[in-house]
């Protein structure tokens, strides 16, 4: 197997939120297979800068798969071809010499493009602000061991809490639904005893905000789960639906 790759990139370029965008083709040669995908884009940007062309804008920060800042549709797949992997952790050994790679931003009405591959995901923050928390003012907490939480319950909560908020679920969904994201937070908090007191208001407020932001509905395609780098399960969506129904039927608020 060759240690370096020659590639053709088709990258979405869009100068600003209101400008129209288009694909621009770039040729790259001698890309090491040990590079990460973003390091490959760094190489592209260095070459563009040298030629006097503006660099491709893309979001990234930790480059170790946890901050959720990186995104990209790579050949039509959110975060590229590997499962359970963010774009920053995708390595070029996954591609073949001579490949053409199409790179696009997340596409969703609720995630407007700001420039090139950068989108605005603040809709997620606004959903969290409507109820993605447990109201516990600093200083008011009882001893951490005063409420035992069975290990399996804690594990279930942790599985859901692992969501990195990158938006791949939305980008992968044909309806641009944010159900996986919302359900992960609702599951995390409603599973824990500490989150029970607010469970009804939480799920109703978060779902209302989700609708307001213009995300689509869930039609059980499960593409979100397949694309999720944190491997959040769609069973959380079932739990979200249950929580929502329960709140609608039983809420005293």
């Amino acid at each position, binding site marked *: 197997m060759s240690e370096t790759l020659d590639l053709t990139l088709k990258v979405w370029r869009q100068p600003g939120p209101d400008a129209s965008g288009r694909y621009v083709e770039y040729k790259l040669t001698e890309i090491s297979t040990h590079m990460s995908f973003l390091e490959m884009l760094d190489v592209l940007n260095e070459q563009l800068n040298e030629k006097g062309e503006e*660099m491709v804008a893309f979001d990234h920060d930790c480059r*170790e798969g946890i901050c*959720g800042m990186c995104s990209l549709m790579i050949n039509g797949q959110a975060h590229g071809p590997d499962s359970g992997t963010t774009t920053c952790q995708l390595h070029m050994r996954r591609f073949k010499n001579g490949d053409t790679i199409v790179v696009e931003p997340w596409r969703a009405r609720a995630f407007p493009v700001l420039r090139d591959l950068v989108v605005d995901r603040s809709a997620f923050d606004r959903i969290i602000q409507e109820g993605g928390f447990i109201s516990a003012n600093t200083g008011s907490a009882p001893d951490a061991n005063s409420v035992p939480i069975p290990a399996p319950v804690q594990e279930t909560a942790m599985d859901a809490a692992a969501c990195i908020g990158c938006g791949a679920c939305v980008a992968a969904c044909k309806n641009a639904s944010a159900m996986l994201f919302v359900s992960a937070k609702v599951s995390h908090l409603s599973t824990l005893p500490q989150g029970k007191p607010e469970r009804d208001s939480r799920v109703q407020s978060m779902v209302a905000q989700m609708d307001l932001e213009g995300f689509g509905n869930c039609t059980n395609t499960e593409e979100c789960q397949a694309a999720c780098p944190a491997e959040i399960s769609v069973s959380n969506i079932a739990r979200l639906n249950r929580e929502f129904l329960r709140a609608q039927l039983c809420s005293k608020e």
Partner: protein
Amino acid sequence: MADTANTVFNSRVPDGPMAEKWDRCKQEMKLVNPANKRKKKIIVVGTGLAGASAAASLAELGYQVESFCFQDSPRRAHSIAAQGGINAAKNYPNDGDSVWRLFYDTVKGGDYRSREANVHRLAQVSNNIIDQCTAQGVPFARDYGGLLSNRSFGGAQVSRTFYARGQTGQQLLLGAYSALMRQVGTGRVKLFPRREMLDLVVVDGVARGIIVRNLITGEFEKYSADCVLLCTGGYSSAFYLSTNAKGSNVTAAWRCHKRGAYFANPCYTQIHPTCIPVSGDYQSKLTLMSESLRNDGRVWVPGGQGDQRRGNQIPDAERDYYLERRYPAFGNLVPRDVASRAAKERCDAGYGVGSTQQAVFLDFRDAIARDGRHAIEAKYGNLFHMYAKITGEDPYQVPMRIYPAVHYTMGGLWVDYQLQSSIPGLFVLGEANFSDHGANRLGASALMQGLADGYFVAPYTTSNFLGSQNLPDVSTDDEAFTEAMANAQDRNSKILGVQGTRSSDSIHRELGHILWDHCGMSRESQGLELAMGKISDLRDEFWSSIKVLGQGEQLNQNLEHAGRLADFLEFGELMVRDALVREESCGGHFREEHQTKDNEALRDDENFSHVSAWEFTGVGNEPVEHREQLEFIEVPLATRSYK
């Protein structure tokens, strides 16, 4: 060499016995009545553990808070990448822990270069942090009975570390973020993401506002307040390659320094022993793996030099478990600085492994044989997964290859006991300040400090400041705001105006090489002198040959990077100068001239038991060194030994 001003520092450490200082301080603090709190505005820059927790807690108290971060969401701050855990003196395992022992371990671990009173307070509030986070829904690991589980961590002989798989930082940050977002929902916090702080505004000697650049539109914006909290993290990215996020930077702290805030101990940088080695010159960052791996993994190199066999093909008789050999009491769990230097020593002596020979093995063979693959997977599954992703090797089959990398910076802006910098009204929290970790930070202590400062210290001390001041109203039309904004705009225009030939990445890499070679894991005077000159030359080159395309009035990531780099090029010189002046070895600062015959760090308590706090006097000018003498009353000075 730099002048030393004999300033008598007022660190405002309360009198009285160590265990009573914090209580006494709180009792003497001024309060702000609830009606007045609503009228006070506080700016918090940064939304990591320190920033998010401070902003949320202050808003809960009733203040108007404005919260800024350069990322697209406060949830992205780099605290999120901390893996291993958070310390607290709960003593749930009944293994002899206490507030005093956590305090003692942290002072000793810091190699006696931290301020005792601050560290004691940190240990005192550590337990409240665990309670607070649990109440917020942080899913810490639990035993089958449902009670919290602990593990041991480098540098400690008790199990006091709480954790959430290998994602403790993520879960703690999401807890603080959720508390912050709740306050955004109430309207008490106004959130300003994708804003980069580019200057501090000082009015009549008091920090009264900030200048930021809106990273989407490129516009400059002015914000005024009654005080400013800086929670902007550390400066590891000066080295280019580090475990920090790509966006992590020193800009906000450095611009405060240029406005008069003293920078303390910039040479104290931490090199983390368990990182994935460099694979090529395209490398953009290094990835850390939690040092909790050292609980079960054994560190070794081949007994012979230049051995190129795969780790699993080397028989036991030909392996050198050098940490267990040199440090029988702590073995693989020695503190980070000790483990890092030992790895460098072995590699420099020719025993390194892998293609670059700049790596040592971290081997789980024995742990898998003892506990079973399932148990190891449960503890470290995500780390093994990440290692396999990056290297293409399966660590269940062959030993991991690891090498130290820059990870954390103990130095930072000087603060007093109240976390106030040398500019009144400017408070500095978390990694951005210098106070709690001395010359070396123990594992699982960074998360503890960030949250201690944000949840339990700053809410008191900023209230005390606001309650004891009678600040006049200030408007963003004030001359100081106009001047600061022009200053920030001018710097950006200059960068765009150079239109040279070199990219910001290439200059940053070069700076990184200079710092790593001469001011990294070991330092000596000639190399440091050389580095000072090289950095100064590189800075000149930056201003004559940087090439940044595009406009200022747009989303321009290259401009953002170049601006941060320009600050690193000024800051780097200070770091090297500080390393040069500190003629001793302590913690992460290892001067080759000062070592024992066993190559261990040799401190000079008589001459260097102080904090060096630097005052800015102009770019390229010699800064003035101020010294805060450190006193060790509770934890008597002793040679740090892990043998």
